[in-house]
């Protein structure tokens, strides 16, 4: 490994409305190394790399590329300096071929000389051992192959500083290995490889050096040989946890509300996202599931709600097998779902508060006489929701798109709890909300638990997990890393489990 610094970022600051995404961050990468940028979601990794690729402009700080101070206004500037970024979501034109995608957008290419292009692409792919047919269409390629096209695209533009944003999130384990083989061969030729990740084992397996960010600040940079998974996990999550419990009543009852047995669910790419997962949820408890998002939480919740097909396993509600039940049947049995995507899944922004408040109850005999809806009754109900949950909105006839995030979420909770559910699935219920809204959402969840509902709370915010949970589980790569009562678990343990470095212990995932 050479010691020539190709990327130096000094004192980078970047402020967004309401958050300081980067606070005095220094970052250095050398030619010939694979450098991992590690941190939780929202730690500021993507912001830092977006600054390095000219997508964002820093408020303060300097960038030096190969010992020269640079000022970048756009990704084009970055590319001309040899900096290329591979995004998590590929920017490829599906009906075009590999070769066409590679030259797409290059201004000096006016006439497509297909044969010369094919030769160039072949040469490049042989040089870096990237196996691709230049004349395949993008839609014919697997996700891993599409990623290789993205890499070739950047190489074709002669970039030697390559940044990859969570490159392994969409890949199978086999594809991950191939990717890093490619990256290693590029590093050996003197390239600088930076990859953003939150997966510990990838860092330990593939990185030469590691930079850890937390809450927008640089925590440290170290060589792989000089650190351990334990240390990295601690650095990644280690922070003061507010211990103010919001869930003080210990009303844990023993009645089982939900039992999940060996549940396996595929994600949209048809890869296992939930992998043989088992747990029980009891009446009168909040089971907090910590974990970095993207570890199968979304797929788990959707499968429980009946909105995503199971690949295997069983789900029982109140002792009854509901594995094959429709979403409506599960709803009618007392399942409520607060999904992570508020506006794309739980609410229709272009419809009124009343209509959105009615989503789950319009079929009840109170509001429905032989198919004709009692819109006055539904409006009255919406008015009651607004009053009881102190939702700030013009009235039942206002459109949901005029509400703030916190009020929209309150509307969802009002609706979901109105039918006194026995199971509440809550995904990131306070994500993006301010402190006051967060507090009221938490109060509602605790009240529901006290009423006797079993609450399954998915969160990546450890404060929230510690404030609310009666029991804690950690989800990692589609599995639960054990479940422990809140009093018996430490922050370190959770951090380790979140990074996949160690199990929590306690009840087994099975």
């Amino acid at each position: 490994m050479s010691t020539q610094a190709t990327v130096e970022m000094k004192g980078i600051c970047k402020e967004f409305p309401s958050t300081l995404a980067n606070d005095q961050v220094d970052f250095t990468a050398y030619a010939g190394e694979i450098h991992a940028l590690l941190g939780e979601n929202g730690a500021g990794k993507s912001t830092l790399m977006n600054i390095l690729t000219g997508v964002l402009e820093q408020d303060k700080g300097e960038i030096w590329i190969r010992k020269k101070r640079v000022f970048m206004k756009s990704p084009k500037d970055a590319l001309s300096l040899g900096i290329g970024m591979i995004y998590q979501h590929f920017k490829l034109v599906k009906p075009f071929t590999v070769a066409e995608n590679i030259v797409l957008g290059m201004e000096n290419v006016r006439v497509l000389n297909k044969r010369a292009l094919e030769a160039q692409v072949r040469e490049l792919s042989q040089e870096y051992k990237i196996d691709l047919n230049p004349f395949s269409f993008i839609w014919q390629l697997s996700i891993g192959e599409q990623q290789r096209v993205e890499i070739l695209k950047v190489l074709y533009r002669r970039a030697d500083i390559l940044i990859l944003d969570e490159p392994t999130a969409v890949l199978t384990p086999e594809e991950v290995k191939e990717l890093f083989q490619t990256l290693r061969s590029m590093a050996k030729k003197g390239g600088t490889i930076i990859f953003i990740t939150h997966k510990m084992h990838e860092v330990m397996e593939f990185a030469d050096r590691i930079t850890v960010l937390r809450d927008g600040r640089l925590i440290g940079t170290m060589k792989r040989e000089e650190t351990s998974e334990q240390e990295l996990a601690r650095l990644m999550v280690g922070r003061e946890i507010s211990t103010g419990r919001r869930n003080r009543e210990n009303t844990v009852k023993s009645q089982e509300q939900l039992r999940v047995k060996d549940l396996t669910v595929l994600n949209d790419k048809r890869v296992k996202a939930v992998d043989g997962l088992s747990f029980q949820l009891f009446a009168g408890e909040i089971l907090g599931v910590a974990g970095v998002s993207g570890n199968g939480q979304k797929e788990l919740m959707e499968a429980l709600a009946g909105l995503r097909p199971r690949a295997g396993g069983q789900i029982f509600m109140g002792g009854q097998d509901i594995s094959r039940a429709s979403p409506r049947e599960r709803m009618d049995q007392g399942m409520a779902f607060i999904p992570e995507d508020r506006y794309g899944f739980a609410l229709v922004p272009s419809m009124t508060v009343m209509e959105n408040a009615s989503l789950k109850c319009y079929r009840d005999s109170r509001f429905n006489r032989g198919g004709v809806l009692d819109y006055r009754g539904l409006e009255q109900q919406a008015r009651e929701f607004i009053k009881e949950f102190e939702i700030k909105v013009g009235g039942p006839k206002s459109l949901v798109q005029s509400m703030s995030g916190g009020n929209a979420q309150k509307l969802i909770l009002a609706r979901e709890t109105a039918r006194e559910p026995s199971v509440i699935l809550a995904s990131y219920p306070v994500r993006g909300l301010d402190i006051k809204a967060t507090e009221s959402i938490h109060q509602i969840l605790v009240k529901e638990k006290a009423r006797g509902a079993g609450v399954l709370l998915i969160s990546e915010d450890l404060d929230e997990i510690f404030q609310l949970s009666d029991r804690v589980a950690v989800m990692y790569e589609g599995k639960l890393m054990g479940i422990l009562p809140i009093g018996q678990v430490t922050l370190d343990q959770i951090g380790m489990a979140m990074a996949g470095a160690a199990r929590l212990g306690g009840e087994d995932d099975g």
Partner: protein
Amino acid sequence: MMDKERRGRGSLRLIRRMDIPGWLRLAVPAASIAGGFLFSAIFLLGAGESPLEVYGVMLQGAFGSSYGLGETVVKMIPLMLVSVGVSFAFKMQIWNAGGEGQLHIGAAAATFIILNLKGYDRKTTLTAAFLAAFFCAGLYGLIPAVMKVKWNVNELITCLMLNYVGTLLISWLIQGPWKDPAGFAFPRTAKFPRAGEMPAFFGTRIHAGVVMGLLAALLLWFILTRTRWGFEIQLIGANPKVAEYAGIPVKRYILAVMFVSAGIAGIAGMSEVCGITHRLQANFAAQVGPSGMTIAYLAQCHPLGAVLVSFLFGALLVGGNSIQKLGLPVSTVQMIQGSILFFVAAGTMFMNYQIQWKGGSRE
């Protein structure tokens, strides 16, 4: 906060309206139609015609006599049935572009019943023809629906393809197996017996199809605005993901709504052959399918709105025919129709967005 802002160059800004006031829903289309006429006036002037005279003749032709008014309603009937039918599917964001094919299948089904069900009275014959048209066209509409639900095939494409299948099937029938043996070379079926003819009213050619169309529009309007099924359809139209989350069996709805939507378009075919032509013949409903879709779009998929716009289209057709006596070609009428359509389509932007001038300030 949730404003979706589109920044224009300089200081023009479009801001999405939070609430669309009721008066705007009528004012914008009315102003758009007027705009279309004004715009056309430029070309009429260029052609050396007096726009006022042309529009006067059009008005006179479409509404000025009981014959003209009757013809306007006659032209409106199939347009109304097809547009009401397809707008029902459009409401759910299911693009039933197959009104043309469904209309032809409905006409063929009604023809088959009437020519083969001999010896029954008019009520029985027409009821049977009505049901046959509705069900056969409905089943025809299920083909793209099933393909969409099962294999996620784009219904717009399959519907358009099936239009060819439907219209060419009728061409073959009237030139082949169903051809009137006494009809010389004309590609048409035998004339219907009296029991298969819908009576005309008021000494015009207006037939019972107008009642069917109005009832269909009223029924769908009631379903959409007052019942749980309408609520569910609107929810699916707004966002199928949310609908699934709310427990609505979206796929079943796609099938059911396509069946009804296509069935109503089929009634348009039945009412044309039973009410006007009294036989199945070539070009008995020229341009009705595409116009029906345009009308549904202009009426923003509102069933009662579709009735109004169909009336306007009927008047344009009849009025347009009457200006030919001024020596103007038919394409003039099409030009006027086109510019009205253009203005109405563009006008929806003013309904959904508010325009603001911000001098000099940024963001």
